């Protein structure tokens, strides 16, 4: 069984082929790193997996279930969660409300127009637990707009963890962070239990290499190299494309 299988996925924007014939198979519990230069189609691949973009051809399967035609929002009910490279949170709301919205998204309660959300103490308690996992429970009542960039990155991860995912897609979780903040986020990501499969896009090789078990190198929308960390690092194509040597 594979946790996430992508086969022959293709997507073009007009004449620009951003994804052409990408195939991937990620095992349950695996830590997969996706690297590649800017414009390699890494984020597009995530958008295709989550259904935020429709592929021109190809198939996507989650734990051997074909989800190619499943509407995007349903896929998140089936165990996919993602973070965004550009922080996509609710700036006017508190951290607690941000995470609460994440928990609510998978609950039938989200359709209820009659009960006060502020009285859902069980939900709030769970949101605090998730915030504690990312070390932000002491800021629960603070509006997101008044937090630091590094804290927001951790809220991004908290939003995805709150969804209790089976497959977690992290899109450059270290982008724009200081060295210290990177270490915090890395510790957080490393601490995620093995029943969660993780696929991570990352530019920062120093941080990401330690994390990855297998690496996929994308270039111009194609998989150029794939293998274990050692194989990919040693591969001449990697150096040529990614490291520019």
């Amino acid at each position, binding site marked *: 069984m594979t946790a996430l299988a992508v086969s022959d996925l293709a997507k073009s924007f007009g004449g620009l082929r951003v994804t052409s014939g990408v195939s991937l198979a990620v095992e349950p519990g695996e830590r997969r790193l996706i690297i590649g230069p800017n414009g390699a189609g890494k984020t597009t691949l995530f958008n295709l997996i989550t259904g935020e973009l429709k592929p021109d051809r190809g198939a996507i399967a989650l734990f051997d279930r074909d989800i190619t035609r499943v509407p995007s929002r349903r896929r998140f009910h089936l165990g996919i969660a993602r973070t965004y490279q550009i922080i996509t*949170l*609710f700036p006017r709301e508190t951290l607690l409300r941000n995470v609460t919205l994440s928990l609510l998204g998978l609950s039938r309660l989200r359709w209820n127009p009659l009960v006060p959300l502020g009285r859902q103490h069980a939900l709030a308690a769970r949101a605090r637990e998730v915030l504690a996992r990312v070390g932000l429970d002491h800021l629960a009542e603070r509006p997101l707009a008044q937090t630091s960039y590094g804290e927001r990155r951790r809220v991004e991860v908290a939003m995805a963890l709150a969804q209790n995912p089976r497959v977690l897609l992290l899109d450059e979780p270290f982008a724009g962070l200081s060295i210290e903040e990177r270490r915090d986020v890395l510790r957080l990501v490393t601490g995620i239990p093995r029943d969660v499969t993780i696929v991570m896009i990352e530019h920062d090789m120093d941080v990401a290499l330690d994390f990855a078990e297998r690496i996929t190198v994308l270039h111009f929308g194609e998989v150029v190299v794939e293998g274990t960390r050692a194989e990919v690092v040693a591969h001449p194509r990697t150096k040529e494309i990614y490291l520019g040597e």
Partner: protein
Amino acid sequence: MTRFPLALAFVALATLPLWMPGTYYVNIASQILFYAIFALGVNVLAGYAGLVSLGHAGLFGIAAYAGAKAITAGYGHSVVAVIALATTLVTAAVFAALALRGTGLGFVMITVALGQIVWGVAYRWISITNGDNGITITGRPFPFGLSLASPRGFYWATLVVFLLALASMAVFVASPFGASLQGTRDQPRRMNALGYHVWMIRFLAFLFSGFWSGVAGLLYLYYNQFVSPQMVALTASAEALLMVISGGTATLLGPIVGAVLVVVMKNVASAYIERWNFVLGAIFVVIVVFMPDGLVPGTVRVARWARSALGRA
């Protein structure tokens, strides 16, 4: 702390016909109340959903037209209400299905077009709507033995409906569904990634908004005992939107304050100033310049500033 002013406002509203000098002002208060219901309905979309509709007079008007046709056909008032509101809901569903193909400017333009279609039907389909002459009805209902024929009776009935509308808004906004709707306004993409059905949330909000617009339209019909294409014109949609924006979008009190402002200007100021529209326009300019988020949030900000300034002194 907020309980006391609310209780005071409630007592003032409930006893208004007893202390207000003359029925003219009682009637204006009734107008304010049903326009406030309309503005509250528009605010569900413009404020909490971030979807600016310029076609809501179509829903406001279609309730009145459906009501007027039902009354003319001889139905009792409770059946009339059901027919009018059902017609509004069906129309709102059609509006939503078409307008929600876009957001932002696309949504605005589609709602303008839909509103204009309703206006066109009201104005030109004379065999049904009587065109520019409108439809006149006679008699107001007698719910629970209260005659709405008198200005006082009508005011109290409208006040009850208004309070129901306000309460429904307060409950809705604080609910999980209300939070979902505001989430789709602020981060639709993230909401989808959290498993929310963004389109359906907006669609249901549109129906809720349409429902209260229809209720307000029916009250308008009973108040004026007359409906004409003027009621569904683009300017009527714009006026409702101005109430929401001037009072403060995505606030409970904003649309009410906006309704007071517009209705008072229209009725009272026009008695003294011939070019009252000019005055209204000038007021809006002042609001936009000094309180761009509306009178209610602006006043709250000024009050907070004044308190801290006093504290320092």
